[in-house]
């Protein structure tokens, strides 16, 4: 068993309303940033997970996304193993 650091990125589906992103883009241009073409806001979860292998860790992470971490109706997700923390 090792402890893996999973980075889980959950982002709003393209095409879906993202008022938060819009508000941030608006605020940025108010602040004088001219070149901001688009902003989308999602969630990032750092999950520390004990698993026998990297593949297993990632697969469990993806399963967690399907079950809980992402809403299949409105969100896409992506799981990467960002690091191995220690032997658990």
């Amino acid at each position: 068993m090792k402890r893996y650091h999973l980075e889980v990125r959950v982002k709003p589906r393209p095409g879906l309303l993202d008022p938060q992103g819009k508000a941030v883009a608006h605020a940025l241009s108010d602040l004088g940033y001219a070149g901001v073409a688009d902003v989308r806001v999602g969630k990032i979860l750092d999950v520390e997970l004990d698993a026998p292998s990297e593949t297993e860790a990632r697969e469990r992470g993806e399963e967690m996304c399907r079950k809980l971490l992402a809403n299949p109706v409105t969100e896409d997700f992506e799981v990467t193993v960002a690091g191995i923390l220690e032997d658990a």
Partner: protein
Amino acid sequence: MKVAVITFPGSNCDYDGYQAFKLLDGFEPEFRWHRDAALGDVDAVFLPGGFSYGDYLRPGAIAHLSPVMEAVRDFAAGGGPVLGVCNGFQVLCESGLLPGALLRNPSLRFRSHDVHLRVETTRSPFTSAYEKGAVLRIPIAHGDGHYTASKEELAELEGEDRIAFRYCTTEGGLAPESNPNHSEHHIAGILNPARNILGMMPHPERAVEDILGSTDGLGLFESLRAHLSGTLATQTP
């Protein structure tokens, strides 16, 4: 008529729902805890508003995995009426018992005030006591009430007469200003295909006594009572 009022950790309208059912003769509300794997012998289920699990991650996301939701799913599959209000609606969407999702209000702010609702269908255990087209005044209180669904799902909801309530003006018209969270098709409440599950963002349980400013929510409870007792509901405006 026994009604299971479900309490998730963080529910805060469970007691309000309980009291609303108590107001009407015939209902016997009982609390059920989210860890209860069985509902017991009940005739209807109420999923209350609040912030189950703090609304963390997404409203309703964690609650929909509670043991009690398995029991609710079975109950609904057997045709039992299930009413989800506010967070209850969010839980129903997260669990797939109703289509679509409730996203952050585009204003990015919590909205708490009275809204007007137009009764869109009387063909359900929850709306039979109303007249079609009636305009109700009922409070909302939510941060995530923007209803969205795929084009196909929206078409289905429209085509199958499954939109129970729409946000409207005082006179019953549909105007952008009267849609507090820019919900698609002004949707405030929807039914499942079998019409025994209703999810809605506004709080009918907060509009059941004059002293609260409105009694327009009573019709929901009266409809349900009529449905459960097999009698025809008398129409209230």
